[in-house]
């Protein structure tokens, strides 16, 4: 019983803390905003120049001057501020964002992330992803554990890197891994009904198993 996209987003939301400033990538990470615990204040950053990103606008209230980094129309909040792209990435590069939750194509056991290009396919560009993984204090990657029959949790990424040694936590549809530059990768949670054997089979990376999980 692998986790659904919502399950993965719900799990990622557990990484939020009150008062955090957070940047969410496109795809499953965007869903995380649906699972912010009640009473917790989290400000979302959009790297095109906004802090305090609100939900999609009501129909008829779309504003061409108010979009997120995914180019979708969004809305303002009472906490909102706007700034330039240079100021936005000064904020990101300077380590002021507490948490970034991003999608991934491959993650390595040393925390390398590949998520921007596949050789031979049309290169679309890395956008702000390289800046986010290099600058944000804690980077959480949310992705499918495998793509068809290809492994994605790797000893070493085969795809071009977005960042080297940047991922702190990996959430897949099957499991959660902590990654520490010194101590490597540790499997810390399993999706309901997923076994250690299944993870072992579907994972190229080497990892320790957290004490609570042994024997499952």
């Amino acid at each position, binding site marked *: 019983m692998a986790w659904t996209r919502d399950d993965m987003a719900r799990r990622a939301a557990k990484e939020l803390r009150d008062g955090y400033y957070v940047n969410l990538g496109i795809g499953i990470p965007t869903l995380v905003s649906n699972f912010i615990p009640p009473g917790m204040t989290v400000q979302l950053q959009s790297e*095109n120049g906004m802090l305090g990103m609100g939900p999609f606008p009501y129909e008829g209230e779309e504003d061409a001057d108010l*979009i997120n980094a995914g180019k979708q129309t969004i809305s303002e909040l009472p906490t909102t501020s706007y700034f330039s*792209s240079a100021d936005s990435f000064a904020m990101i*590069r300077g380590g002021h964002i507490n948490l970034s939750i991003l999608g991934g194509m491959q993650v390595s056991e040393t925390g390398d992330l590949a998520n921007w290009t596949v050789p031979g396919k*049309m290169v*679309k560009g890395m956008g*702000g992803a390289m800046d986010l993984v*290099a600058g944000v204090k804690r980077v959480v990657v949310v992705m499918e554990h495998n793509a068809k029959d290809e492994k994605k949790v790797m000893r070493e990424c085969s795809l071009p890197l*977005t960042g080297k040694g940047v991922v702190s936590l990996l959430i897949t549809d099957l499991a959660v891994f902590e990654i520490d530059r010194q101590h490597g990768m540790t499997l810390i949670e399993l999706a309901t009904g997923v076994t250690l054997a299944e993870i072992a089979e579907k994972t190229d990376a080497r990892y320790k198993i957290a004490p609570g999980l042994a024997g499952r």
Partner: protein
Amino acid sequence: MSKVYPTAAAALEGLLKDGQIILSGGFGNCGIPSDLIEAVRDSGVKNLTAVSNNAALDGTGLSLLLETRQIKKMISSYVGDCRIFAEQYMKGELEIEFNPQGTLAERIRAGGAGIPAFFTKTGAGTLIAEGKEERIFNGEAYIMETGLVGDIALVHAWKADTEGNLVFRKTARNFNPVMATAGKVTVVEVEHLVEAGEIDPDHIHTPGIYVQRIVHVPDRVKLIEKRTTRPRPAK
């Protein structure tokens, strides 16, 4: 000496030459200097290097200059939304230099601020680092990136006064202020033009020193790339 010109074409007159580096503000279709780009197209100038975060959607923004093959090279962070871009790039007709978005913004900021080079962690250990100086600071790897200036910067602002003081609106600010600082000549199209003194000097985003020419474009329809909404709650 007035900075205000009657049309976008007039505002660009005498500035454009083949082979120039053109900086353009905007993010996707948001805050792009549409009228100025159309005037560049109509001028017929070619072999341009365009520096812009994106190429906008087909039929808008810089993609207009791709259609007419006036651009030989782009420096951008993401071009995934533009079909004509993909076509020309895959055929080898267009050169592209991808910069991480924050590196692009900072290179232009540095160019405008007289900083020829700086170090950033972004891209260290990736393809982006190839051929660049790497250096360790406090145990972490950084790469050296260089400042970037343009011959002409094209900017879209919400409001300007006749001195060229600019105010941007919401996320249409994006790359516009930083582009304004890094053009040898900066030309701005504005939705609202007022007299000097009508903007609170504490609300000005870009001081007039960065703006050489202004054109008033009051009637432009702004495009939305992805119209996303939520239903109104029942009363």
